[in-house]
């Protein structure tokens, strides 16, 4: 594989990582910790929203993030023909 293609593959990969990790940070450190008091004024069913993110929501999002990453990377690997 030539160097240019390698570089482009890596750059796209890093782009995905930046987006996914931003969401990762937002739902846990953001909604679950830093903004928890503000979000707690909103109710989600019997939950305060900030508390829900800290003990439930962030975990659901984490699982989703990994599976989205798997899909994105499988596509990217095919595009650059580096899949196995």
């Amino acid at each position: 594989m030539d160097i240019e293609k390698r570089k482009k593959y890596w750059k796209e990969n890093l782009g995905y990582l930046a987006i996914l990790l931003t969401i990762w940070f937002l739902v846990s450190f953001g909604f679950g910790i830093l903004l928890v008091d503000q979000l707690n004024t909103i109710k989600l069913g019997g939950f305060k929203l900030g508390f829900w993110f800290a003990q439930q929501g962030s975990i659901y999002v984490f699982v989703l993030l990994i599976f989205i990453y798997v899909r994105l990377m499988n596509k990217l690997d095919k595009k650059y023909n580096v899949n196995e």
Partner: protein
Amino acid sequence: MDVQTWTYIIVLLTFGLYIGIAIWARAGSTKEFYVAGGGVSPLANGLATAADWMSAASFLGMAGLISFNGYDGSVYLMGWTGGYVLLALLLAPYLRKFGKFTVPDFIGDRYYSNVARTIAVICALLVSFTYVAGQMRGVGLVFSRFLEVDINTGVFIGMIIVLFYAVLGGMKGITYTQVAQYCVLIFAFMVPAIFISIQMTGNPIPQFGMGGTVVGESVSLLDKLDGLSTDLGFAEYTNGSKSMIDIFFITAALMVGTAGLPHVIVRFFTVPKVRDARKSAGYALLFIAILYTTAPAIAVFARTNLIETVSNKEYEEMPAWFSKWEKTGLIEYDDKNNDGVIQYVADKNKNELTIDADIMVLANPEIANLPNWVIALVAAGGLAAALSTAAGLLLVISTSISHDLIKKQLKPDISDKGELIAARLSAVVAVCVAGYFGINPPDFVAATVALAFGLAAASFFPAIILGIFNKKMNKEGAVAGMVVGILAMLFYMLKFKFDMFGGGTKEDWWFGISPEGFGTVAMILNFVVSLVISRFTPNPPEDVQELVETIRIPSGAGEAVEH
């Protein structure tokens, strides 16, 4: 049938299953012993990783901790799951492509240095031994409470079982017993949770029941618990009492530490391809999330049930479980005002009841009056959780010795067969040492678990990340970074947990960060030191830079395992 008979039946059945699997999955070569031949399917690896990861602490301890800490307990929930996102996105695929057997393998090869390799080995051993002592203790606890054998006999039985399948099967045996153990532990965790959720909220899904309305009342469960807590002088359950900065740093340290734990990382060496490594990280977190989203629900149910059962009630009228746990010393009642009524309040001078957080999961089915077989099932689940984690850790310990020390440093010309014998012997020694610590637990076990995460965060995580994402990172930078990270972590822990270097109290914590959260600071220090030093020292050799290029591209992972 009584609880004890049920427990004997269920525990014997599950142990028979584990041993059967171990005999079926014997390891014939070092590759099978270290990485199960690299042929585990992503689904099986996901299940095994989940069991590997969820220890006695997750199964028995966590819901209790959250129960007593409310919102503050979120650090464990987010910390011990969020790390898998880092693992899946930043570590697992690349380490799989690198395709050797251990974490010190990667550190040693990537930083072309046996010094770096040795630091990694020491860290791996320190982290794993700390952890494994706790697991053995967990096995002993379950045995002593449910089968009424002596706690030491319990540890001894646990040792023999683990010895059997870890030594015989290596990674291959461990992987498939862990798959079975996951099924046992998740079933055992969910059944009581579902029962209690229906009892309390009418909703069979605990995750929803937690946010539901109390049966027969119009108030939501969490609002009710907030009310009960504040009435007794405790902090509001959904708000907690730790400072925001400390919550932030502890969560980060646990996340990064999780991603840096060698016994978790090494599981991703066992799948055939890079894409399988990514996928199995997803499965692993999915299976972990089932337990981790149920635990906070159990915490709420248990806390509410507990307060309603004991608070301001006659001591004489306590149900049978109360006196059973009193005998173990894990529940203590001290009638300070001699009125025969239990005052359970936040004020230490008036409070008459102390409850060990560790018993909440075990006692929960009894508190909720569930059938005997459910109580027995929880005991078997706790054993599955403790044994699966212990086995994973013992494998890391034996591999570190036979592969990273003997094969890579002391005696490179050792034959595959000789190395396999060395691996098995080190596993035997490791089990004995773990058993010793299980029987004679050092009083600092609780403090050192935080240290294990802190060390993993301060050493492995930055070294691996930089090794993959920074091509110019060299051995000088990595070694200096790891040393500074580890020393900073040790210093802070010794100062504030063991009263050395002048000691100090909560008020003296730097920026209000507890020793549990200091791993994050040590990790940042490691990153900074590595980056600065590497700028003033020579670039790594061409072939190492080429290695970094190769691990970034998924294709060709199959052949990488062969050498």
